[in-house]
């Protein structure tokens, strides 16, 4: 994938930052408004997918390397599991041991916020990996198809 035209590249460069900020907002306010870790993670992943569509695989991987994405993928899930373990302090798995805080404030409702952040990392990196894996697949199978036709 070489990327698309100059117009697409410029515009996508311009919006990618905003998309990521919007995704982060959805994640951080997931316990107060509609949204949460999964929805925000999908939005963040879509920013990287946009980069990949507009500029090609190499530019996208220079922003978020494949190896880094793999590590983030596992780390997000492990962080969520760890949050579950923290609850054991209170007697039960996934018990909300942090303070509930004041209603309608960002730092409230205990471990839902860290849980959302962990899930967002997991979802963003794994969706990005799924998309890149399918993109690589497509290129390779396309080549093999052409070779098959030449033979």
């Amino acid at each position, binding site marked *: 994938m070489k990327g698309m035209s100059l117009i697409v590249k410029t515009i996508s460069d311009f919006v990618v930052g905003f998309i990521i900020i919007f995704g982060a907002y959805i994640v951080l306010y997931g316990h107060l408004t509609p949204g949460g870790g999964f929805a925000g993670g999908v939005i963040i992943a879509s920013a990287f997918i946009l980069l990949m569509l507009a500029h090609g695989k190499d530019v996208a991987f220079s922003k978020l390397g494949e190896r880094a994405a793999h590590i983030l993928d596992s780390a997000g899930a492990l962080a969520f599991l760890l949050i579950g373990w923290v609850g054991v302090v209170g007697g039960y798995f996934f018990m909300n041991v942090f303070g509930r805080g004041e209603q309608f404030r960002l730092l409230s409702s205990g471990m839902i916020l860290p849980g959302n952040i962990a899930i967002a990392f997991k979802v963003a990196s794994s969706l990005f990996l799924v998309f890149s894996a399918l993109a690589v*697949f*497509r290129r390779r*199978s396309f080549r*093999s198809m052409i070779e098959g036709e030449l033979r």
Partner: protein
Amino acid sequence: MTVYFLCVVLLTMGLYCLVAKKNIVKKVIGLVIMDYAVNLYLIIIGYKKGGVAPVVERGMNSAMLERFVDPLPQALVLTSIVIGLGVLALMVAMCIRIYERHGTFDMSQISKLRG
């Protein structure tokens, strides 16, 4: 009642697509339609006429809380969509691999295992 019936119609349409089409990508599409028919069904179960989104805001009283639609099926649907996404990614990846091996999407040409 009609909406439940329409959900079942959608489900059977997906099933028909899955059974009748030979192209494996179309089979995948049929499966996705079935999946979404069930998601729709779950959402309708929790729906209330004239209901509002179950989001608590500042200054709400209990009369307004009464008008909320049931949020539990929505949580179920969200989970089911995530699962469906995982299955879909796996299915598409498998379709591409099958195309690599066989050079076709036609199930009747792919099918070798029998007996």
